[in-house]
């Protein structure tokens, strides 16, 4: 057992670091808000697209993908180093939905024709995907969804409402989960589709987040006709396909690299900021909490490495508990970091965009957005169910999905 990087990996790490450090000097203020808001809002979105082009040119955008689909078969630990670097420097560019989730799903389940047609545009950074899963009455209980895709000749006619569609307003495509067999209940009778947002019968409406930013959307389907060649995998097998897509969604050494960067900022803040005549670091309670957050960050990072290792040796599909644990721990630690920072900043910590806002208001920004991450992508309570079932072998009772 060893955690050492090889000389080549160290060189890669330095190369990524140098690149992102330099590029982020050009980032507009919107980007520096960080997170989904920074990536997809205003000038931030323009910067995201510029970065995406550069990442494609560098050959880094989908480097972990197989060569035949536009990648270079980069080993998973090189990809992990890349993910850590991009997260640490807060650089946007990657379409997590297309590159991170739908692409790998297509590689497993799509026909050769679909792979050729759909994977290359993702690999070239030409398209932005979004995920079409949640509905007003199907949140945690996703399998109860009601959007219908009824077969009509070579087409499926789609009607229904999707909600909490992150970056739907920037997306060209959606991977949609809809009910193809109305007679079947829950997971049986669902199918996955590739949807092009330029098709008729699709309407995207914004939902404002609590801080006023535009992250989420509703998407309405009204008699939208989807050709059967856009169905991914067998008809009515969409639930098991989606479960695999979910596991692609949950990993993440990057999250801990981001937390590390935030702790660096907070450390600098407590070293240089005085309150009531004393530096913040002189307060033992501040030191205790800082020590704890560092310890948790390092422990979480070690666990994320383990998740990456399990993925690399091909075990993760048999141990999704590890990925769920990573999602719960990283999002909740991010929340604890933001809570701590806002608290020690006092009233100034509550300023969002002001010369009086410490760390450019990033912490109060995270405080508001991280709770969205705790709820989305399978709420942390749903993750805990999975951890208990898979990790501890506890039984699923009737009605627990």
């Amino acid at each position, binding site marked *: *057992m*060893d*955690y*050492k*990087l090889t000389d080549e990996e160290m060189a890669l790490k330095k190369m990524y*670091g140098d690149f992102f450090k330099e590029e982020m000097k050009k980032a507009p203020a919107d980007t520096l808000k960080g997170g989904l808001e920074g990536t997809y809002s205003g000038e931030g979105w323009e910067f995201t697209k510029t970065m995406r082009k550069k990442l494609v040119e560098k050959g880094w955008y989908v480097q972990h993908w197989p060569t035949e689909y536009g990648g270079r078969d980069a080993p998973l*630990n090189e990809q992990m180093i890349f993910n*850590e670097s991009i997260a*640490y420097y807060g650089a946007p560019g990657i379409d997590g939905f297309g590159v991170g989730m739908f692409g790998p799903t297509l590689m497993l389940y799509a026909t050769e024709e679909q792979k050729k047609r759909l994977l290359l545009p993702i690999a070239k950074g030409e398209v932005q995907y979004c995920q079409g899963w949640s509905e007003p009455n199907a949140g945690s209980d996703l399998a109860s969804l009601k959007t219908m895709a009824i077969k009509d000749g070579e087409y499926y006619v789609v009607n229904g409402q999707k909600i909490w569609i992150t970056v739907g307003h920037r997306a060209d495509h959606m991977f949609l989960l809809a009910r193809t067999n109305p007679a079947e209940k829950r997971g049986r009778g669902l199918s996955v589709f590739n949807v092009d947002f330029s098709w008729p019968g699709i309407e995207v409406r914004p939902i404002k987040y609590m801080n006023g930013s535009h992250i989420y959307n509703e998407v309405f389907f009204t008699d939208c006709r989807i050709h059967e060649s856009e169905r991914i995998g067998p008809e009515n097998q969409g639930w098991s396909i989606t479960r695999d897509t979910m596991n692609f969604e949950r990993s993440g050494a990057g999250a801990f*690299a981001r937390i*590390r*960067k935030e*702790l*660096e900022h907070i*450390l600098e803040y407590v*070293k240089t900021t005085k309150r009531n005549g004393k530096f913040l*670091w002189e307060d*033992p309670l501040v*030191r*205790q*909490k*800082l*020590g*704890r957050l*560092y*310890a*948790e960050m*390092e*422990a*979480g990072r*070690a*666990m994320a*490495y*383990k998740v990456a*290792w399990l993925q690399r*040796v091909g075990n993760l599909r048999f141990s999704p*508990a*590890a990925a769920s*644990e990573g999602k*719960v*721990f990283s999002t909740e630690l991010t929340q604890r970091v933001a809570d701590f920072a806002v608290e020690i900043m006092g009233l100034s910590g509550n300023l969002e965009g002001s010369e009086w806002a410490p760390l450019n208001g990033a912490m109060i920004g995270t405080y508001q957005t991280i709770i969205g991450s705790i709820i989305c992508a399978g709420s942390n*309570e749903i*993750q*805990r*169910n999975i*951890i*208990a*079932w898979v*990790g*501890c*072998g*506890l*039984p*699923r*009772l009737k009605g*627990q999905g």
Partner: protein
Amino acid sequence: MNLDFSSEQTMLRDSAAKFFANECNYEKVKHLEESEKGYSPELWQKVAELGWTGLLFPESYGGYGGSFLDLVIILEEMGKACFPSPFFSTIVQCGLLILEGGTEEQKQDLLSRIADGSLIMSLAQYEAETDFSYESITMKAEAKGDGYVLNGTKLFAMDANIASKLIVAAQVGAAGLSLFLVDADHPGVSIKKLPYVSSENACEVVFKDVVIGKNDLIGAPGAGATLLDKMYDKAAVAKAAEMSGGSQMAIGMTSKYARERVQYDNPIGGYQAIQHFMANMLIAADTCNNYLYRVACMVDEGDDFARDASALKAIANESYRFVTERAVKVHGAIGTTRECDIALFYRRAHPFSMICGSTAYHYEKVAQSLLKEGLGAF
């Protein structure tokens, strides 16, 4: 990067697990806990024959020159078994102190006897008014003639009641904290076992005009704090290993109970209150466990691991206490009985948390290191 154990390490783990399952089940543990000696000399000899007592020492001192990760693997299994033994006091605390600060002669003599299982040792460090922070130790070793005279009372000297040699931390004039080797049956030394929640051999050791020679030192006069620091960086990781093993076992036992115990016509593990308890327990144990291996590798790879050892011990303290408390709760009333095995872990939570520095002590140490050096290269 390779996060799998070697085949030898997997074998080591399996054989350790098998040994404890066959030789020291929880019935036996409870029986040993209630005995005056608090351990089994027969089992201790078997442990020595398996080579675990010498695992950490170089072959030239009768050891096996194993890696720190090997030791961590053994300690995890001891933590799972709640194995009552002087392993931590003798091998980890005293063994590491001698290895780091002993003379060649001391190493040849003491380490080889520790390795073959014939020597049990105890570290006498704590006092009534000093916690783990040994900077404030008050006991004095007064220079007299050709040696020193020790007077004072030490507490929580683990396994002193079964040890034949003690390492005693005392202040020497201007030199400062120093470590002395004292025979347990030396005139003027009296040892009394204290009733301790974990039933470990926590002892009071009283020194009354104990006269020792000038060579009965580990390291130079005044080297005590440095030697203890170095030892405790590793010992903290070692104790975290025991705790990590204990957490894993407590979770396994509790999962099993939650699958079997039926209330309202269902196994209680089917209810979300229990499921979320258990999920939180598993997250706490797994983060600790993965961090443990990472820090153990840092030790083996010669990295500076002091900050991470502290961070790890604090995480281990928090997760072990959290896991063992929840484990008793899931068991319900039966979990609170002497009969039920789960309380073995619960009773160890506080002593284990304190032994190489409390949570607060380690968070402070991490914070001081961050303030001084920053987070370090990403």
